[in-house]
């Protein structure tokens, strides 16, 4: 006869009602004596600030009509992007979602690229063809998303699979929203990855909302990380507003995955502090909920931590901020001056340049693909 599972009886707190109770208690093991050096700790700070400041600038450009279409803010979630990407090794592959600008910064994308991209310039990574954070190739350690949510989970499983075949010892990391964990692709990707124990880390950014839909209308679970139980894989929950906790949790998850214990499903609890995209003022978010999370701004928290633990003094942080601002100004100027793409370029590159498969044979020596 049916047993009732752990979560079946509990009701998810309705939105707004108990914003605080839903906030995870800091798991003891996620607050390690950080192994990061001072310069690394300040690195994280710089990325957090850069992330926030670039997005603020994009938002201004949007209001000026220079950025069109969807513009998605990661305000309040920067610690997840930055902390997780910072935990990766060089050979690892990261697939950002639309709120992971910070992760791309950490992995080496220059601010100018975001401006070029959003302003649809010729020299932009997508040559003006695609929008948002849909850029960066495998040569740079990225797989860019498409808009269709969930699709990256199978795709990154394939990256992890190939990485293993090629003996690269890599971990594939991607993000997914609370809402997108309802997609079929989330399930198919994790099904595939789990039976082969692929080195994949899936980080759920539970920012409490999917557009206007609260998590409670998406799932009965309190912890979306519990979805791991459907695959028999390791799971974890982390405070998504604590950059060090995210870094630590991702490091351990990546470790597990690299050692063949993957895939790992990690959930970072956080809050989307702006609307779904620029046009949305998020009127549906209860005031109380917003206020609660405002106090937990990840950058503020981290500043407090740095100052409180004596890692840095106020002045150092201000200097970092100024440097970020200067870089952004310079990069934005470049992007503003850049030309728009040639109109007819939009029909190019549908296919690879013509190749003759039989001719290709000789030149194209099979690349070694080591089997693990």
């Amino acid at each position, binding site marked *: 006869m049916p047993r009732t599972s752990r979560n079946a009886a509990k009701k998810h707190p309705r939105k707004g009602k108990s914003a605080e109770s839903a906030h995870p208690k800091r798991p003891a093991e996620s607050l390690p004596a950080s192994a990061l050096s001072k310069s690394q700790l300040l690195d994280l700070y710089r990325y957090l600030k850069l992330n926030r400041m670039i997005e603020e600038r994009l938002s201004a450009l949007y209001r000026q009509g220079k950025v069109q279409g969807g513009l998605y803010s990661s305000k309040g979630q920067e610690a997840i992007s930055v902390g997780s990407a910072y935990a990766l090794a060089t050979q690892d592959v990261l697939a950002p979602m639309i709120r992971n600008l910070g992760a791309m910064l950490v992995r080496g994308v220059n601010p100018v690229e975001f401006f070029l991209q959003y302003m*649809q310039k010729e020299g932009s990574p997508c040559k*003006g063809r695609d929008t948002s954070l849909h850029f960066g190739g495998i040569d740079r350690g990225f797989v860019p998303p*498409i*808009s269709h949510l969930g699709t990256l989970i199978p795709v990154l499983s394939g990256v992890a699979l190939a990485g293993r075949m090629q003996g690269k010892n890599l971990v594939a990391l991607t993000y997914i929203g609370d809402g997108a964990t309802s997609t*079929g692709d989330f399930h198919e990707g994790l099904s595939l990855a789990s039976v082969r124990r692929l080195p994949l880390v899936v980080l759920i950014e539970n920012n409490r909302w999917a*557009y206007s839909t609260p998590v409670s209308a998406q799932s009965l679970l309190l912890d979306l990380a519990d979805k791991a139980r459907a695959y028999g894989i390791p799971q974890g929950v982390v405070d998504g507003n604590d950059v060090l906790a995210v870094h630590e949790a991702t490091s351990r998850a990546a470790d597990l995955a690299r050692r063949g214990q993957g895939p790992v499903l990690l959930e970072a609890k956080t809050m989307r502090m702006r609307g779904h995209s620029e046009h949305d003022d998020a009127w549906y978010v209860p005031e109380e909920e917003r206020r609660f999370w405002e106090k937990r701004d990840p950058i503020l928290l981290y500043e407090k931590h740095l100052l409180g633990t004596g890692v840095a003094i106020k002045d150092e942080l201000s200097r970092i901020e100024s440097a970020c601002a200067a870089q952004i100004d310079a990069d934005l100027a470049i992007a503003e001056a850049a030309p728009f793409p040639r109109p007819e370029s939009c029909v190019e590159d549908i296919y690879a340049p013509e190749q003759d498969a039989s001719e290709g044979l000789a030149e194209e020596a099979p690349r070694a693909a080591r089997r693990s």
Partner: protein
Amino acid sequence: MGEPITYLEAIRQGLWEEMERDERVFMLGEDIGVYGGAFKVTKGFLEKFGQDRIIDTPIAESGIVGAAIGASLMGMRPVAEMQFIDFIACAFNQITNFAAKSRWRYGAGVPIVIRGPSGGGVRGGPFHSQNPEMYYVHTPGLKVVAPGTTYDAKGLIKAAIRDEDPVIYLEHKYLYRLPRIKEALPEEDYVVPIGKAALRREGKDISMITYGAMQLHCMDAAETLDKEGVSSEVLDLRTLLPLDAEAIEATTKKTGKVLIVHEDTRTGGIAGEITALINERAFEFLDGPVTRVTSPDAPVPYSAALEDYFLPNSTKVLQAARGLLSY
């Protein structure tokens, strides 16, 4: 007749009136309730009809369409929204294999409507601008409609909801709030029959066959040609499946020169099907090759510079028309 309203408002009214008329009608989709839909098509519906008939779902298009199918089998009349029609790709299997084939397989009609914003022109990029019609036009058992006017937007959503078979209702987001097509609609209940094209303009020298937002470019081009003494006929298909073959045949026989204009990409677009129909039904009446003006074979680009190049417009229509006229 009331005040002139937008195309979007016409859809909203059509949905609203059908929900009032028939308790079997209900809606499901992402953010359609509390938020009223990404484009506000269902604003106010939750308050009026309650959360049992306006259902905010998880992000699961295949699940949404599957649930709509199941409910329709039970005698309900579900209307499923795709937040952008691009995401219908995730429900492709449920639509083409479950919904489209049930009646034929064992006699069970699946009266569902799947609607959502389609088309380009709003800088949405490759995943928020698609024209997915042909994937469904090629699937027997479905119906596909694509209104290009405010009157039709309302009349076709009503017809779609009352239809006994699954209907894909493509609303063009470029038209949603376009002042130019605002229109005062009849106070009384009306439907636009599925399967019937509309002659937007009568003429004798050339026929433009089109639908959706492209109709405007055809009308503009026709206007210009008119000043040059060329009389154009503009046929708005409105329904893409089943096609109004009689109307296509009639206009071909009348003018002998046919230009087909669609926003969808060229290869495998509906222009091919229409060309084949014309060959079969009116070959001897042709005074020149059936000619296509379409988007090129590429995804819809994001940048304004690119998208303007990509999409058909009245200049391209004019150019093609002149070429055909001088054949």
